[in-house]
């Protein structure tokens, strides 16, 4: 699995902990990494992803449906799953303020092994680490 994930675009390093089933992926500094592709690659390597968390820095924007999203690249953004923390970021939408957040992108649904990668991943903010 480590090799399989390491071959994905934008991945610099993969650390696997067999004891607690934790996989840490470090993106390349200038690379664009696709979390949905990582989920698929994980499944393709024969293991099931139970959950995925991401720490990212970007701008708060409003997407086409009017919902809030974190823009991490000009062509890559993650819509927020609404919660209290995402509501607190609403005032920053459209501003140049950079926000660093940690959030959950995926959680396995009971009874399902294969992640549904057809729908875009939503970011459930767990922690707002920095606003600058």
């Amino acid at each position, binding site marked *: 699995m480590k090799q399989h994930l390491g071959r994905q675009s934008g991945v610099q390093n993969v650390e696997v902990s067999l004891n607690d*089933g*934790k996989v840490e992926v470090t993106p390349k500094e200038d690379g664009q990494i696709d979390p949905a592709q990582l989920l698929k690659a994980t499944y393709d390597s*024969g*293991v099931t992803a139970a*959950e995925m968390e991401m*720490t990212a820095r970007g701008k708060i924007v409003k997407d086409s449906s009017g919902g809030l999203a974190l823009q*991490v690249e000009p062509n890559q953004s993650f819509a927020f799953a609404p919660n209290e923390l995402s509501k607190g970021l609403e005032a920053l939408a459209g501003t140049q303020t*950079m926000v660093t957040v940690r959030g959950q992108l995926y959680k396995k649904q009971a009874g399902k092994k294969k992640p549904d990668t057809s729908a875009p991943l939503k970011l459930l903010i767990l922690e707002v680490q920095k606003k600058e």
Partner: protein
Amino acid sequence: MNSRIALLLLLGCTLAPVSQAQIKHIEMRVEGMT
């Protein structure tokens, strides 16, 4: 000349925040790993 420098500075300020944006870390918990 000065206006060119000013334009470059303005462009830099506009583009810099997006270029500094990025995914910093991804962590997964997996099942079925042997």
